[in-house]
């Protein structure tokens, strides 16, 4: 690696501020010009794994099929809250074809969440792991599950966070049901004073549901031991996290664990953590002396591998007649599930709109249900729905156009840390989005339309970190035959990491994409990089790729100078050839340079530089929805979504649009149909398959227009890229909600805004 130094670095990852001291390169590369002047970056380049995926040759974790492989299943609790008194596995073990059964009785205690274990004798939610079985086939393993006899003491349970917060509620953990014992609080200015100064005040409660990630590809691990060395193929967004989890659980050093993930069919945050299933597969593989594959089914995916916490948010906002916000307060609670996960959702509220007096109090509450996990912009989706609904309501009170109201309260600086942004082009996004949707066509008076179908236009504002940061490393290997391998400390969860890594290397080295291969998702091979969550992958990895490639170019120039006996500053690099500026007849191709210096493979390592100190890095955007509400049925049809965002530099226009389509589709699901429903009387989940858990389908899709108002942000990194995976999803539901409000004059305060809710709200209003 080139010159480095250690600096204090800060970046945001899924709602957490991560502060560390990081090693970063000293030399900064010139920022790239705008995309128009680049050759490969920013273009509509098809994903390089497209052929593998569409032809069926791509290997997903489930496709790993090793000789003598055994198949595993997990016995899960059918009770929401219970204490195990006894487990008898004799019958299961005796079933022909069963190879091993593990329970808390025959494995070492492995600590897991908080005060619990891999197999705990206290069951805290329906779906919690009780035992693992390996058998010759998955069918046998499934049959054997039913032969395990368990005696439990059933405990009172609670599946409603409002109820769980009460003193009298059954305790899920010793310390009570409020995670951390206290709410998160935040205050600036004086809220009460601000309210006194307001001409208009609104006070409303909004609620959002639990949604489940439900990626296409199931959670799956394959574990194989070779002596003390364990290889795990895992469908994961975080190979290094999984390696850490597995090594700690099994008490073996990290160098004995290799985690591999080549292709993946989505995760959305549900695959950001090391799974119990992975450790169970490894334990069973050890016990049977055979490779073991463990795949979760759709039911398990809906019970036990994460969700977006619900929320109940009570908001009070005050504004002057001219639209100036004077005070905002946010009281909220949401359910974490049975183990700790963040249900907070006030970040956008604290920072999107300029307001001097803000007060926040939020509770994350344990309930007897599957634990939450980060889900595509945790907190922000539910927070933005409530915040932007309230903003439209307040704007209506003072007869102000909601967009004008937002512009009136435009925040020039980050209000929580009181520091400037590296860049903020939200105003441009508002303007471009409004133009594209035809903002002027919206109902000046909400609900004025007549007839069966009422149309309306609404908007929501997006904020999210997505700046990435160190540590993130890339190793670049240049082969003498003018081909390249780039090994990046990352993984492609389907978003196109393979492709943009090749693009950046190709851009710098001017070597065609076809001669560049990218290796990701193998802890045994790639240098370290961050988990693929928090929209940090491209902003962290792309600058490291560029750094590695620029170093390679410099190395070639230096070597050429030596070989040609010329001064380095007299040389230029073009398409793999180094030539003299003063005497163009002197030139040498990189293969020849490498021959002369006797290097079959040149290696460089690039790193992500530090983020600038004293600045806040955020992505911004606005989405606009054009909807039609059937007043006879309450059904909402989204006709069009315009997404206008500031996300730094676009690396690949096609991949970018993919991300926006996915984010908006998921936004429509959250807004209009998806919901995990738990039966309150039994504590059991009712929506464990894909026709009761309603994901949106292609026929529910609107026209989508994506507008990017930013070029690269040179203050962040040498590529100026910000992440987009989460920004794409954040404001969709808010925009739809406000469009429904604009169409009908009635605000739906709870998601999903299903036809029954809309119809009842309309009929109560008429």
């Amino acid at each position, binding site marked *: 690696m080139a010159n480095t130094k250690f600096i204090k670095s800060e970046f945001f990852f899924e709602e957490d501020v991560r502060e560390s001291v990081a090693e970063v390169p000293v030399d900064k590369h010139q920022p790239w010009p705008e995309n128009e002047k680049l050759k490969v970056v920013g273009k509509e380049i098809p994903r390089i794994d497209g052929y593998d995926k569409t032809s069926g040759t791509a290997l997903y974790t489930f496709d790993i099929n090793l000789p003598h492989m055994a198949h595993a299943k997990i016995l899960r609790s059918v009770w929401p809250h219970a204490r195990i008194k006894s487990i008898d596995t004799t019958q299961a073990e005796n079933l022909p074809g069963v190879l091993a059964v593990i329970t808390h009785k025959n494995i070492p205690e492995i600590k897991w969440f908080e005060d619990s274990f891999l197999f705990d004798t206290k069951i805290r939610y329906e779906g919690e792991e009780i035992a693992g079985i390996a058998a010759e086939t998955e069918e046998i393993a499934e049959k054997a599950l039913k032969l395990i006899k368990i005696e439990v003491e059933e405990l009172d349970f609670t599946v409603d966070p409002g109820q769980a917060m009460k003193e009298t509620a059954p305790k899920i953990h010793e310390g009570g049901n409020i995670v951390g014992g206290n709410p998160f609080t935040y205050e600036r200015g004086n809220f009460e004073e601000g309210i006194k100064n307001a001409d208009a005040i609104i006070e409303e409660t909004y609620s959002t549901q639990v949604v489940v990630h439900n990626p296409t590809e199931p959670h799956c691990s394959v574990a194989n031991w070779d002596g003390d060395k364990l290889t795990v193929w895992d469908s994961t967004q975080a190979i290094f996290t999984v390696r850490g989890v597995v090594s700690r659980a099994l008490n073996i050093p990290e160098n004995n664990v290799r985690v591999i993930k080549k292709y993946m069919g989505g995760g959305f945050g549900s695959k950001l953590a090391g799974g119990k299933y992975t450790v169970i597969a490894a334990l069973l593989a050890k016990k049977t002396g055979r490779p073991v594959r463990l795949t979760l089914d759709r039911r398990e995916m809906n019970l036990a591998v994460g969700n977006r916490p619900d929320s109940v948010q009570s908001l009070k906002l005050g504004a002057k007649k001219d639209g100036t916000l004077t005070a905002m307060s946010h009281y909220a609670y949401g359910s974490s599930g049975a183990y700790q996960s963040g249900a907070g959702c006030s970040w956008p509220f604290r920072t999107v709109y300029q307001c001097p007096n803000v007060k926040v109090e939020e509770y994350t509450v344990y309930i007897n249900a599957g634990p939450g996990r980060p889900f595509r912009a945790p907190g922000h989706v539910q927070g933005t729905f409530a915040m932007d609904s309230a903003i439209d309501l307040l704007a209506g009170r003072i007869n102000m156009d909601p967009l004008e109201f937002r512009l009136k309260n435009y925040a020039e600086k980050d209000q929580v840390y009181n520091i400037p942004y590296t860049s903020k082009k939200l105003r441009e996004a508002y303007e471009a989005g409004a133009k594209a949707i035809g903002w002027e066509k919206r109902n000046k008076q909400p609900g004025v339309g007549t007839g069966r179908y009422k149309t309306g236009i609404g908007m929501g504002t997006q904020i999210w970190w997505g700046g990435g940061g160190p540590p993130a490393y890339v190793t670049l290997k240049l082969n003498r035959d003018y081909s390249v391998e780039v090994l990046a400390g990352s993984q492609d969860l389907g978003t196109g990491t393979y492709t943009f890594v090749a693009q950046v290397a190709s851009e710098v080295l001017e070597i065609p994409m076809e001669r560049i291969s990218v290796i990701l998702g193998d802890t045994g091979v790639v240098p370290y990089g961050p988990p693929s969550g928090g929209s940090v992958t491209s902003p962290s990895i792309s600058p490291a790729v560029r750094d590695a490639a620029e170093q390679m170019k410099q190395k070639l120039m230096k070597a050429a100078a030596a070989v040609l006996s010329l001064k380095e500053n007299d040389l230029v690099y073009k398409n793999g050839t180094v030539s003299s500026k003063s005497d163009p007849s002197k030139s040498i191709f990189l293969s020849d340079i490498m021959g002369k210096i006797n290097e079959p493979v040149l290696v460089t390592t690039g790193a992500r530089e530090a983020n600038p100190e004293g600045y806040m890095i955020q992505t911004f955007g606005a989405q606009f929805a054009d909807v039609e509400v059937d007043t*006879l049925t309450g059904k909402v049809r989204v006709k069009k979504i315009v997404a206008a965002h500031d996300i730094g530099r676009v690396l690949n226009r096609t991949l970018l649009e993919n991300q926006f389509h996915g984010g908006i589709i998921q936004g429509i699901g959250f807004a209009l149909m998806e919901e995990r*429903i738990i*039966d309150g009387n*039994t504590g059991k989940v009712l929506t464990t398959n894909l*026709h009761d858990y309603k994901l949106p389908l292609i*026929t529910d899709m609107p026209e989508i227009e994506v507008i990017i108002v930013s070029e690269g942000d040179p203050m962040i990194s040498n590529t100026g890229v910000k992440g987009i995976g989460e920004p794409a999803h954040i404001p969709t539901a808010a925009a739809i909600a406000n469009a429904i409000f604009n169409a009908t004059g009635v605000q739906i305060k709870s998601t999903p805004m299903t036809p*029954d809710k809309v119809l009842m709200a309309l009929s109560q209003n008429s």
Partner: protein
Amino acid sequence: MKNFKYIPAESLEKASQKKDDSVLMAGGTDLLGMIKDDLLTPETVINLKSLKELKNIRYNAGKGLEIGALATITELAENSDVQKRFPVLVQTCKEIASPQLRNVGTVGGNLCQRPRCWYYRGEFNCLRKGGDTCFAVDGENKFHCVVGGGPCYIVHPSDLAVSLLALDASLEIFSNGKLKTVPIDDFFILPEQNETKENILEPGEIVTKIIVPEIPAGSKCAFIKFKERASWDFAVVSLGILLNTNGSTIKNGRIVFGGVAPRPWIDTALNTKLTGAATDEKNLKSLADSALLEAEPMSKNDYKIILVRNLLKQALIDLSKN
């Protein structure tokens, strides 16, 4: 899933003899899912698909349409006679499930499919499974019935049942070695009669044919299905309507509701008001508002009544035009 023996049916007789612990399979789109989820644990699965004669779709002018029980939903929708003379059936087929399911699912299977109550399909030992409670009563009953329920509160999931009842179809059933014909209205039962099944079929009885009489000249038909998502979704409510109007009054008609009751539902009071009713918008509106007066919605499904009335109003207005 429990292992089972698989037997292709050799003949109606043989298929109907196997009774204890055996189940009949047509397309298997519902049945196999139930077996996989351990809701059914048969010893034997008898596949009716080998009975080719049950696949025919035949139209006889004057007599009407005969649909073999084993004809797939797609075959029904693509039949040219059906398209010409029973477009309402085509309309209904297109609303069912997804193209893949329609390619495999049969008409007989659609009528005999089991309910979709999420308690029934889940790990709940409810009344319909021989247990002693209905979990929907004070549970999550948004999609349950508003009329005809008790002690079980399912809605019947079949879309075709609604249209076929509006068209006054009959079913031919192979029973004890003989064929009998039953009006479709008498085929479906309510839970008060038996809460563990949805129709009159006894073990070993096989639906062989669906007979649809000619649509009376001058009558118009419609099937309207409301679902939460644009495709691949069961009906929240649905309407099957046959209406014969002469200028300003309704000569006669029949209105059937789906998604509101444990069987395709005929609101008798409403239907008796049809003959002679004026077709001005005001009257049609009050007619629609008199639908489901006897309904007793559960805690989370009162919206269904508004939904039915709204859709009915619109449908009656549309059908009485010109």
